[in-house]
């Protein structure tokens, strides 16, 4: 069936709520309104207002309540209306949810999913364009996923809901209705912790995830006559699929990491460092990064274009690395 990226998310939540009565959805306007982006349209009507719950405007409350529900055996999905505001619930995530299993010596778990629209490219300005993954990449006890396709959006959401640990699910609002994709009618899951090879190549590896996957694949195809590019879509950011990365680096010897989040302190730095340390003798050039400029995401379209990575910048970076 042909679905959009956001419809894939809605279907995954709907199917999991039908499958397991412990699955709930909490968030601002998720119920009667069906979500600010309509990710939960029809879910309250179908599953009831005690399972699809409209909350006050307090991310800390939503996440804190979710942790409590999880401890009591529920599997809550917690929507941040814009992922920018996840920072309001930071303490509940890093000190409460992420440490729960550790604090109890493995005897309890915290099966929550925190999801919400991330990313720019939609002229949303600095409060509606953020990519917060790096803040949480540093925290043990969390898992982070960031799908780029409708298939992964659905399969990863289902895996996230079934996972016993807190999963941060960063969906990209630029892709919500721009992606339309055939996905299987029957049920499927996408495992957490596995990257996907989007294109095979021998000369150079581009490691990316979420929205830039599409620009990278397009750039790689457009440049096929000059350089043979391998594209890795990480899909899961924590834990990262190092096996796939290393196998590719061993093959190509050149790596470009592309993410929409800012450069400094972004997760590309960790990937680059680890490649430098563990794949040093396979490297045929410096590990390079392309990311958003170190500033806030501007509102003005031309300035936003200037700040965020795009296909032209990707092509330029690839040329530079390929020539090395």
């Amino acid at each position, binding site marked *: 069936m042909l679905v959009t990226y956001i419809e894939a998310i809605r279907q995954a939540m709907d199917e999991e709520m039908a499958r397991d009565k412990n699955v709930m959805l909490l968030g601002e306007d998720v119920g009667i309104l069906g979500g600010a982006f309509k990710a939960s349209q029809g879910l309250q009507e179908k599953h009831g207002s005690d399972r699809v719950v409209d909350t006050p405007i307090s991310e800390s409350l939503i996440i804190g309540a979710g942790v409590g529900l999880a401890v009591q055996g529920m599997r809550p999905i917690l929507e941040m209306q814009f992922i920018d505001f996840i920072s309001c619930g930071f303490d509940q995530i890093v000190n409460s949810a992420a440490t729960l299993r550790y604090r109890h010596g493995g005897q309890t778990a915290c099966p929550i999913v925190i999801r919400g629209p991330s990313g720019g490219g939609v002229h949303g300005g600095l409060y509606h364009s953020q990519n917060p993954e790096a803040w949480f990449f540093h925290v043990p006890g969390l898992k982070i996923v960031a799908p780029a396709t409708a298939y992964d959006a659905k399969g990863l959401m289902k895996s996230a809901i079934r996972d016993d640990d807190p999963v941060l699910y960063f969906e990209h609002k630029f892709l919500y209705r721009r992606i339309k994709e055939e996905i299987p009618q029957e049920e499927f899951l996408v495992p957490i912790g596995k990257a996907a090879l989007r294109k095979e190549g021998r000369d150079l590896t581009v490691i990316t995830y979420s929205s830039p996957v599409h620009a990278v694949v397009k750039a790689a195809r457009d440049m096929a006559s000059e350089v043979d590019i391998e594209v890795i879509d990480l899909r899961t950011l924590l834990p990262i699929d190092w096996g796939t990365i290393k196998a590719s680096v061993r*093959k190509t010897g050149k790596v470009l990491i592309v993410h929409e989040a800012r450069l400094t302190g972004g997760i590309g730095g960790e990937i680059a460092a680890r490649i430098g340390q563990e794949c*040093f003798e396979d490297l045929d050039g410096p590990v390079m990064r392309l990311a958003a400029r170190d500033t806030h995401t501007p509102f003005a379209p031309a300035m936003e274009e200037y700040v965020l990575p795009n296909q032209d910048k990707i092509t330029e970076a690839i040329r530079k690395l390929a020539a090395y």
Partner: protein
Amino acid sequence: MLVDIVMPQLGESVVEGVVVKWLVAVGDLVVKDQPIVEISTDKVDAEIPSPVAGRVAQLLAKPGETVPILTVVARIETSLGTALPAPEGKPPWDEETEGFPGHMARKTEPPIPAPPRVEPTAPPPPPPPPLSGRMRITPVVARMTAEYGIDLSGIAGTGIDGRVTRKDVEEYLASGGKSAAKTAEPVAAAAPTPSKAPAPAPPPAPAAAPAAAPAAKTAAPAEGDQVVPWTPIRKKIAEHMVASKHTSPHVHTFAEVDMRKAAAHRAIAKKEGVNLTYLPFLIQAAARALREFPAMNALVAGESTVLKKDIHISVGVDTEKGLLVPVVRHADKKSLAELAKAVDDFGARGRTGKISPDELTGGTFTISNPGSKGNLFGTPIINQPQVGILRMGQIVKRAVVVDAGGEDAIVIRPMMYLCLAYDHRVIDGVAGNGFLYRVREILEAGDFS
């Protein structure tokens, strides 16, 4: 105004306290919260701070005296004609030098000095001169240079500033570049090996050799020759074969196994309409022996060996696309019938191309069964990053000498040469031979229940 200082109740059950030491004298000026007396009770010792600022007017208890709680022990005058002293330079608790109050305090340790600021003693070195004559190379090129013993000066670099890239080296080697003799060996050795050793599914260990095997010489096709480009699966097999031979020093050791009891078991099963091959017998025997020799059920990860808890046996399956090596999981927990079913299932699905990638990963040991025709014995290649592989030879009837009630007798038995290849980096001869001997014992004992 005079303010009373009383013996506090330090704990619900405490009724009295001892004045240990006065920290101030009559007439002293005190600031608020300044400790004025040390007291001791059954439960705790403590310093009592002054609740107010002022001048000490009276001290009403002597050091050593025990007084009931809430008894007035001192009085402080707060209405002063003169200005109050400024708080002393040192606060009651200096977090900087004393840490946080409580058990984390490090009162006795000196404060940590700030690291000195070091100014460079010499000016920074000048930027490197432009590249002329001297060659800068990347890590992978350095490694390949050492591995293949090549002289980079003979290679025209296509990278920035004429840098020799990995591709340049590969092309040089592929075009018959002079590589040192020692490096031609592992490449050549892998190619003609007759064994159908399997291609490993997991990515090669970190120490693995270069991913692609550069051809030692170009084989220019003559007229009438057929050029068959490698399929992806063939490329994978080639990579893994070269990587394995390059990574592990293989030792091959052989046992001659009397398969009489296995053959008998098989014949009985056949009468019951069940077609058994010998492979499930081998899987069962190997799985049992692996339980006793955990060192053989292992994977190499960098410079350590991972002894695997579970026994998952990889078996080679011939498919149209090439050799696949699916994994029989928890082989030690499966009955002979279950093992046979698993193997048959792989065989059937291998022909239709429906073995999923997940089924190709996670093996901890491999058994290769290359079929029967004329295959007496062979030397398999280890399925990296495993450390051992068993290879079955053809089972043929041979006259062998056995002990028949204390007398030597010549009898006819179905015999099989069984070869074990093990990674001599991690498996010593004693363990390798012991394991192989044990597999043989289990097969000959004939207990397949």
